């Protein structure tokens, strides 16, 4: 995507819009219990906000916001959060991914709600890391 020059107005508008998209994405992840939404949708919207800056300002400036080397580790952290929630339920005495046995105080139904929240955060982190990583790989590959 080196065929055009980045424009000041486009950079200004996308810099203004990107934080609001991220805020709405976080709302979608954390309010997914009560309204349509959840980890997949919120993670994809976060990835869209990151890619918006990359499209408008180019790779060099976008490194300041989200470095290129951060994508795959963030995806791995998301997968590990998911596995870690399951293993924590095992440590509490239940079976794998049985959130009622998480080692936290509270009733079984509230613990299940909390476990769902952890899992959604893990899914969201994995999706944003992997999608940004795929975009970077496609953009950096070879000459045109």
């Amino acid at each position: 995507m080196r065929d055009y020059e980045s424009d000041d107005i486009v950079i200004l508008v996308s810099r203004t819009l990107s934080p609001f998209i991220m805020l709405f994405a976080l709302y979608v992840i954390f309010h997914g219990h009560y309204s349509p939404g959840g980890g997949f949708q919120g993670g994809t919207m976060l990835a869209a906000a990151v890619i918006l800056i990359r499209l408008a300002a180019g790779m060099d400036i976008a490194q300041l916001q989200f470095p290129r080397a951060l994508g795959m580790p963030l995806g791995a952290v998301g997968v590990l959060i998911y596995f870690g929630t399951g293993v924590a339920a095992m440590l509490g005495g239940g079976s794998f991914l049985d959130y009622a046995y998480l080692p936290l105080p509270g009733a079984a139904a509230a613990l299940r709600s909390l476990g769902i929240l952890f899992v959604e955060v893990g899914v969201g982190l994995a999706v944003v890391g992997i999608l940004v990583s795929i975009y970077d790989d496609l953009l950096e590959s070879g000459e045109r």
Partner: protein
Amino acid sequence: MHWELEVTLFIFLVAAALLALESRNLLTAVVSLTVFSFLSALLYVAMGAVDVGFTEAVVGGGVSGVLFVVTIFKTTRTCRD
């Protein structure tokens, strides 16, 4: 759940799919595919699947289109069929 809305969306969906498959310019084809994704998201919501509609709108209209356009910029922009 409202059959008039669903039939209208289905007809536009088939038209967008035909446009995406038959255009010679690949950028036109990809933009038609994005329109196709948005129409299918509306259709899911009309059928009562709000979560699936949300996901399709975000994925098909946002990230998938961008990845497709990057692919076309990296390769060729025209095709013969």
